[in-house]
């Protein structure tokens, strides 16, 4: 469990164009300096938005990372719901899910 490292990696990708370029061209190398578990590494590289959400990445960091990854809004929300169904409740942080995984709170 290295949620801090995982979050920091995504924070940097979200705001640093140079790292964005390296992450797009050679993602495995770009993230080597971060001390991630195998599960976290896989979640970033895939990217598995649902798993990142369940691991406790702050929603604001995750939302920006999903946008960077080209994931459309409704798809982003659905990936988090699917993550809850697959991996269980959010494990850390202040972005736990309150609604039912089958609910569409804002209609999307």
């Amino acid at each position, binding site marked *: 469990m290295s949620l801090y490292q995982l979050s*920091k990696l995504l924070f940097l990708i979200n705001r640093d164009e140079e790292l964005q370029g390296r992450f797009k061209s050679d993602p495995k190398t770009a993230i080597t300096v971060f001390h991630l578990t195998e599960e976290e590494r896989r979640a970033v590289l895939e990217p598995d938005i649902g798993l990142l*959400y369940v691991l406790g990445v702050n929603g604001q960091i995750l939302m920006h990372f999903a946008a960077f990854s080209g994931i459309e809004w409704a798809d982003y929300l659905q990936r988090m719901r699917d993550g809850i169904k697959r991996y269980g409740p959010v494990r850390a942080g202040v972005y736990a899910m*309150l*609604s039912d995984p089958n609910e569409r709170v804002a209609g*999307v």
Partner: protein
Amino acid sequence: MPLVFAGVCSHAPGITGRSERADPKLREPFYAAFSSMGEALRASRPDALLIVAAEHFANFFMNNMPAYAVGMADSYDGPIEDPAWLGIPRRVVRGTPDLSRRLITEIQKSVDVTYAEEWRLDHGIMVPLHFLDPQNSLPLIPVNINCQGPPLTPLNRVWAFGEALRRAADKVPQRIALVGTGGISHWPATPDSGMINEAWDREFLNRWARQDVDAMLAYSDEEIYRDAGQGGFEIRTFIAAAAAARGTGEVHFYAPIPIFAVGCTVATLEIR
């Protein structure tokens, strides 16, 4: 001189990024109120626009998280997000470093504020700028209150920070417009996005508009998280604006717009 304008507004990224998915009957009056606030702001002939925001990890992170930060850069650029996703093109906004420095020096007499000569803008400031300064004409002083990475600064300290902003503005000759921007209740960036506690919002706005300081500062973070979500922590920006303006507030627009993920708010404050 005293502030020339004070107000608060929402800044959720869906306001611009998911514009076409909103009911026009809600969206258009909200946009109109937002733009009217911009007209009133510009009519006050400010020399600089100070925005008290609650950023979302555009600059500050848990390696070194300031409770309060003020920008002191030559310029600021944003959005950090994909412009197509946010629906706002990239812009470079002029800074006013000498004025920032004077304000920071004054604020520091009562509040230990972080200053930053590098600062990138996320939706928290870009959405307000999009409506309030569409021509990118005003120099910016970005201000941040940490509302994202707990532990968060207590509300009574936020009030003192707002008072310090006002004291600093009063000490300089420039005309400063101040805007606080945050959500009231909301659960953003998760599948709960769109949940809005309208009753809680209206109660908070009522306390805020009548300048009921004790009632505004009475919320604990536990209560806010329970009743208003993690997004509710951003009431800090509204509270700082109220402390800076000292006068009562007028809510020009409030309506929950779920696809925008927040109770959309436009309000101004009397400056006393």
